[in-house]
């Protein structure tokens, strides 16, 4: 059918043009982050000049202590969601497999923690952290990131466990397994794909967090790198713009790569969270 193939060609063309348009900011970021501060100029942004990307990244890491910040951020983005998925799965296991009394009420109580904006906890957390010495510590950051990740984890894991037949649990009990063993050896392995999906979503969210880092930390070593990047932009955005852009590239690359390689998990996580 000529009409059909023409329609397909038009669709492909529209998408290709729009896609190229979408890639322009990426192109501008790449070529300008690669310009040395000496050749960089704000009046000529579209033509590449030289390739000093790695020097700029090195300079960006020195300027705002991004090097230590990267390690701290990695710690937050791995440890917090890891704890949160297990804690969330444990709650889901208690509600679904162990048939916790008033389980649905507890489920709503945990999930309710995610429906209000973070603005509601900023000031008390800042106040409490200042008083308890948790302000500007890695422990403090891990704790808050874990807490905000739990409601979503519990929500997804509870929904996932609802799909597992209860006689799986009963059979394991008849085999004499303890509840802890059933959780760790039967339920967690069965849920591994959902666990990974939730972990990836939460890790990306934490890596990209700006607000909690802004309010609850101060030093370059504790501050998440996105927060440091914002500080760097306002301090060095003039003369050393190419260095700031290189910093932006460094901060953004890990989550972009992770997302592109785990799209299916990502979409699955989003879908699990919604139904």
């Amino acid at each position, binding site marked *: 059918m000529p009409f059909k193939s023409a329609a397909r060609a038009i669709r492909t063309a529209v998408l290709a043009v729009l896609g190229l348009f979408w890639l322009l900011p990426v192109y501008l970021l790449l070529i300008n982050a690669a310009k040395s501060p000496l050749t960089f100029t704000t009046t000529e942004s579209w033509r590449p000049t030289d390739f000093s990307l790695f020097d700029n990244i090195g300079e960006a890491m020195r300027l705002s202590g991004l090097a230590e910040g990267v390690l701290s951020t990695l710690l937050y983005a791995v440890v917090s969601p890891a704890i949160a998925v297990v804690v969330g799965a444990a709650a889901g296991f208690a509600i679904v497999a162990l048939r916790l009394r008033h389980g649905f009420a507890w489920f709503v109580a945990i999930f309710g923690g995610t429906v209000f*904006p973070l603005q509601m906890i900023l000031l008390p957390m800042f106040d409490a952290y200042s008083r308890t010495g948790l302000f500007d510590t890695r422990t403090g950051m891990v704790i808050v990131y874990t807490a905000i990740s739990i*409601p979503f984890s519990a929500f997804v894991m509870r929904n996932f466990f609802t799909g597992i037949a209860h006689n799986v649990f009963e059979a394991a009990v008849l085999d004499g397994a303890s509840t802890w063993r059933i959780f760790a050896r039967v339920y967690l392995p069965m849920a591994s794909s959902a666990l990974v999906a939730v972990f990836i979503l939460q890790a990306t969210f934490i890596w990209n967090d700006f607000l909690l880092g802004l309010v609850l930390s101060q030093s370059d070593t504790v501050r998440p790198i996105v927060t440091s990047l914002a500080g760097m932009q306002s301090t060095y955005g003039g003369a050393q713009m190419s260095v700031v852009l290189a910093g932006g590239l460094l901060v953004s690359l890990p989550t972009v790569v992770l997302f592109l390689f785990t799209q299916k998990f990502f*979409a699955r996580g989003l879908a699990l969270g919604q139904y």
Partner: protein
Amino acid sequence: MTSDKILTAHASKDQFRWSARGFVAPGVLLVAVLLYVPLLWTVFISFTEYNGLGDPEWVGFANYVEMFDDPQFFNSVLNTLLWVGGTLLVPVGIGLGVALLTWNLKGGTWLRLPFLIPYAVSGIGVGVIWSFILGSGGALDQALGAFGIDDTPRWLVDAPLNTVVMILATAWQGVGVNALLFTIGLQSIPREPLEAAKMDGANGLRLFRSILWPMLRPLTAVVVGLSIVASLKTFDIVQGMTKGGPGGASETLALTMYKETFVNSDYGLGSAIAVFLTVVTLVASILYLRQQLSSKHGV
């Protein structure tokens, strides 16, 4: 069944009650201590005068009165509404468009890729890139200059244009994930009614209106709900690109809350704005959940 087996079943049921509590306890405790207690504390502080020193002093609704008297507050409400409307129109709309165009198209996965790249970039990262592009004499002005357009507006200074361009920058980031979600929705549509409609000669717009759109409705409700709730809380990208400026012209509610609390140390007023934002978010969430539930029953 022997009597001792019944006995073990009984014993284990009792045992489950305690282990169930044990399994749910960490989640409940962490959420209660770190989310609910601070939440209630913010509500309390919103009725007090407090700057972090000394004790909070009860002032009743004074902070709320001050909030509704402040023209800056209304400016922030208007900007926030602009964000809600704009992010529904542009990223959700284009996302649906991309999903429909790539649907059943050879190479569709590859053609979708450019839109997915920006999705996992942080709000601040998006702000860094777009501040560079939109700065005075920046990449956009140079491109327009090449077409002979030299008299360009000050993208990040003139209000409300600055909010509009920031919404477009957010659209650049958000189209991909909406396209991905709508694609999943399209792929889950059963083949039979589609084939039947195509046999009847339905095509293009008619196919969309009669089959695709009704089938996508539950998913659309989810995407729209997520978009509204997220845009109400807009903070990162505005703080990254204009800091709410000039003179508060592009502030959103989340930004005004942050400024009053952590810059002006007016904890009471900042908390009152947080409570207002929460009430609006909850109302929006409830409306969307109801819509979602009713559409699920309806279809």
